[in-house]
Structure formats: structure tokens, C-alpha cells
């Protein structure tokens, strides 16, 4: 674009503006970037700082008003036994959901990357994209239908004479409950369902990049398919799985709608945040709670970057 100086100057105001920018491409970049950067900077980053600021305020127990003074009392409150349990429960759930998503996603991603061709490939892609993009609430609602006591799971169990198995699972302490839609198992199933596509896409992207001659070389050198899988394919797919896990982990950490609708009403971080800011008006503690997933995700993203997960995104 530097040759532009060789041509005649343009006519009119618009022409002169164009010439000015041609001579200074950096200025044009800056001018293009300014509005979106201002928006994200002011609206989003600004709000994040407002949140951080709130977490250093505290709530007056008697008046219920927020005291606008710097204090670490709210963070100390976060360390209470009950609150730590909420955090631990959420992190365990997020880890299990991530693991299950990885296991279920892998065969789909592997099949799509290795065997699907032409229209099959498009079909696989759409079959993953459509559930990913269809309404989040509708997906949760679908599971409310499935897991309800009078719903399809119970019906199938009795049709197959497996009611004893279902009742046995539901009577397991901690993870069981009166019905699947009021148990940790239910919460877990719905989480896995809603975040699964986020795991499939990056895993598939990583698998697409595995060169076929690596596999041939591995086989030629006498490796069994199992050895090829664990020493060649899996390590090369790992960045993709980690990239997917960023989504499944982070989304589970912050969600409050799934455990509200399907679950045993024990709190997760998201639900705690929602109730604290809403009914009890304790925005400082709610803010301090959200700092937890932010900090966890900060560490997680840093580790993921080191393992090369960002190249697949």
C-alpha cells in the first residue's frame, strides 16, 4: 500500500481522508480498533473491576446495607466451612463432568476425523453444531422430562424389568435421591449433555491434524493398535481435549441454572452467587464467590496454554 504516494492526490474531503490514511496505515488500524476496544474495555473490563471492588466491601449484618470501606472480612467469610463445601462440591462436579465429556466425545470426534467423508462429514459436523447451538434452556427442560419420576427413564427401566437397578442406584447415599431429577446423578447427566459439543469440536480439530504416516510408521514398526493409540494418537489429541476441557470445566463452575432445575437443592458456586446477590442482597460476598472460579480458571488457562491447548482453539 506504500505505492499510494506515487498516485495523484484524491479530490474532495473523502479523498483527502483516504490519502491521509493510506500514508499512515497504523492510524487507520488504531481508529478501527478504538470503538470495539472501548466497548469491551469500559463495559466488560470496567464491570469486572467493579465486581472486584465490591468483593472488598462488606455487608452490615444488622442493617443489611453494604459498607463501602476496604476490608478483607468478606473473603474471611468465604472461608467458612459451609462456603468451602460449596466450592469443593462445584469443583468436583466440574472435574467429573469434564472427564465424562472427554470419554463420550472421543469416539465421536475420532470417527468424524478419521472415517467420515463428504456428506457424512457435513452430517457429523451439523449433528454436533445443532445441539451446541440449540437453546440452552430447552436442553435442560428436555432432561427434566427424561428424568422425571413418571418419565421415560422410569418407563424404560420397568419395561426392561430393571426397576430394581434404578431404585438401587437412587438409594445410593449422597449421589442418589427421591428421583433422578432430584439427585446429583441428574445434575451430572444434564451438565455432561449441555457441554458435550464443546468437547467434541476441539478434540476433532486436534485429531484432524494427526498425520496418517505417523500411524503407518507406528504400525510398520510393530506397534499394536492399542500401543499406537496410547503412544501416538492420544498424546497428539491431548491439546484438543484440554482445549475442550477449558469450556466444560469453566461452564460447569459458573452455571446455576442446571443445578437449580435438576438437582437436590444443595448449593453450587453459581447458585450461591445468584441467591446472595438476589434475595439476600449481599453483593460483596457474591462478588467474592465469583473470584473463586475466576482464579481457578486463571490457573487452568495458564496450564492449558503451557500444554499447547490454545493452538487448537
Amino acid at each position, binding site marked *: *500500500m506504500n505505492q499510494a504516494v506515487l*498516485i495523484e492526490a*484524491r479530490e*474532495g474531503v*473523502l*479523498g483527502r*481522508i*483516504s490519502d491521509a490514511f*493510506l500514508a499512515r496505515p497504523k492510524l487507520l*488500524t*488504531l481508529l*478501527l*480498533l478504538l470503538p*470495539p*476496544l472501548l*466497548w*469491551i474495555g469500559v463495559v*466488560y*473490563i470496567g*464491570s469486572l473491576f*467493579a*465486581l472486584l471492588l465490591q468483593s472488598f466491601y462488606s455487608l452490615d449484618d444488622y442493617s443489611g446495607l453494604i459498607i463501602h470501606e476496604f476490608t478483607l472480612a468478606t473473603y474471611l467469610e468465604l472461608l467458612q466451612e459451609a462456603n468451602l463445601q460449596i466450592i469443593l462440591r462445584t469443583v468436583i462436579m466440574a472435574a467429573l463432568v469434564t472427564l465424562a465429556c472427554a470419554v*463420550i466425545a472421543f469416539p*465421536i470426534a*475420532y*470417527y468424524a476425523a*478419521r472415517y467420515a467423508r463428504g456428506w457424512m462429514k457435513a452430517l457429523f459436523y451439523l449433528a*454436533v453444531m*445443532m*445441539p451446541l*447451538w*440449540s*437453546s*440452552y*434452556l*430447552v*436442553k435442560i*427442560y428436555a*432432561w427434566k*422430562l*427424561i428424568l422425571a419420576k*413418571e418419565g421415560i427413564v422410569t*418407563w424404560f427401566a420397568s419395561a426392561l424389568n430393571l426397576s430394581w437397578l434404578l431404585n438401587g442406584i437412587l438409594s445410593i447415599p449422597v449421589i442418589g435421591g427421591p428421583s433422578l431429577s432430584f439427585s446429583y446423578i441428574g445434575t451430572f447427566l444434564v451438565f455432561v449433555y449441555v457441554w*458435550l459439543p*464443546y468437547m467434541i*469440536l476441539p478434540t476433532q480439530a486436534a485429531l484432524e*491434524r*494427526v498425520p*496418517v504416516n505417523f500411524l503407518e510408521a507406528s504400525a510398520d514398526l510393530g506397534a499394536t493398535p492399542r500401543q499406537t493409540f496410547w503412544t501416538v494418537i492420544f498424546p497428539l489429541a491431548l491439546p484438543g481435549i484440554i482445549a475442550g476441557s477449558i*469450556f466444560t470445566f*469453566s*461452564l460447569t463452575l459458573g*452455571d446455576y441454572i442446571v443445578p*437449580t432445575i435438576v438437582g437436590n437443592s444443595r448449593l453450587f458456586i453459581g447458585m450461591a452467587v*445468584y441467591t446472595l446477590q438476589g434475595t439476600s442482597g449481599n*453483593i460483596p460476598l*457474591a462478588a467474592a464467590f*465469583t473470584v473463586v472460579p*475466576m482464579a481457578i*480458571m486463571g490457573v487452568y488457562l495458564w496450564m492449558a496454554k503451557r500444554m499447547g491447548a490454545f493452538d487448537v482453539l
Partner: protein
Amino acid sequence: MSFKAKRKRPAGLSLAAVGGLLYLHIPLALIVLYAFTTEDKSFQFPPPGYTAKWFSVAWFDRPDIWPPLYLSLKVAAIATFIALILGTLAGAALSRARFFGRETISLLFVLPIALPGIITGISLRSAFDIMGIDFSIWTIVLGHATFCIVVVYNNAIARFRRLSGNLIEASMDLGANGFQTFRHVILPQIGTALLAGGMLAFALSFDEVIVTTFTAGQQSTLPIWMLSELIRPRQRPVTNVVAVFVIIVTLLPILIAYYLTREGEHIGGASK
């Protein structure tokens, strides 16, 4: 395209892949089935009978559905409009220049969807709180536009990268000014990508609930209406009818966006 096409497929793998896809799709099919059930008090399976009356009930007898629907459409339209402008500008700037901090800035645009929605929601909520801003349609739009920018940006930057610089140079060398070049050379080439990005942004905003619950106050968008129906159900099949409508409204843009961007690039919203 690195794997060979003709290879024996292990039966276990095919089974796991098909099973996984069924797991993804059966629940959505059930939503449609239950829109036709005659039982409105529980989720009895199999439905005791089938009827289409809930469609007319939803249309004629439930005036509480319409205001949230209008609000959702309005919010999605405005948020998409803002995201289209800002996302395109960001895509144009970051595709053409290399400078220090470029990676950080692109991470900044992705952040609103990489971090859990609840963080975006409560952040905005506490910012409104500190600045004394009252809830209105604009507080909802503010949140939605923020996470819609990235969808447009992803589509725009992918297309800008494929855009040949020679054409722009030729246009400018032949005497067109920057605006004429944009109108006649750049816009026709990025048009479909912007349309695709805009549709994805619209679908994303139309469906969003987590951020919205923090920025809406007493207002009700369609997802918020649905959430309250999930917590306190009235006529369950009516919720299904609305759910079927929502599936169609969100899926059509996705299919069109896929069609518009299917050559070469993967769809920009791959990471929602």
C-alpha cells in the same frame, strides 16, 4: 484430511460414535413429542394421548408469552446491530496489522464467552449498582452486545484474512477513495461472513438467560419466561410448544450461517 478414507472401522468405535450422537439428539426429539401430549400435569411417558391443541392455546390463550417474545426479539436485534459494527471493526483491524499486544486484545474479545456467564452477569450488575443505573432494555442490550461481538469478530476476521490485499490496492490505485473501496470491493466480499456472524449473534442473544437474569431486573425476556415456567410450571405442554418455536428460531440462523460460510472456513461460532 490426514487420515486415509478406506480403513476398517472398529465396530465398537462406530457404536460409541452413533450412541454419542443419539445421546445428543434424543432429548430434543422428546421436546417435540411432549408438545403433543394430552397430559399437562406431569411428564408421563409414553404420553396417554396426542393432541395439537397446545399450539392454539399458546397462540390465543396465553397473552403472557407475547411481551417477553417481543422484548427478546428487540434485544437480539439491537445487540446484533451493535455487535456487527464493533465485531467487523475489530476483525478488520486485527487481521491487517501485527503489533505488540495483538494477542492480548484478541483474547480480550473472547473473554466474555470464555469466562462463565455468571461472572459477566454479576459484574454488570455490580457496575450498574455502583453507578446507580436503573434496569431497562438497554442494560440487557449492553450485556448481550458484549458477548455477541466475539461471534461476529470470529467470522469477520476469518474472511478478512482470505481477502486479497491486491484488490484493495488496485481499487485505491485506480483512484477510488477509501469509502468507495469499502462499498464496492470489500463489502461484497465480506457480506456473507457478516450475515453469518450476525445470525449467530442473533441466535446467541435470543437464547441467553444467565447474563440476562442479572441485567433485566423485573423485565422478562423469552428465556426468562421459560425459566420461570420450568421452576413453576402451569401448562407444561405450552412450554414445549414455545420450546419447539425457540428451537426453530435458533436453528434456522445456524443452518443459514453454516450454508453461508461452509467453503473453507469452519463456522465462526464453533466455540460459542
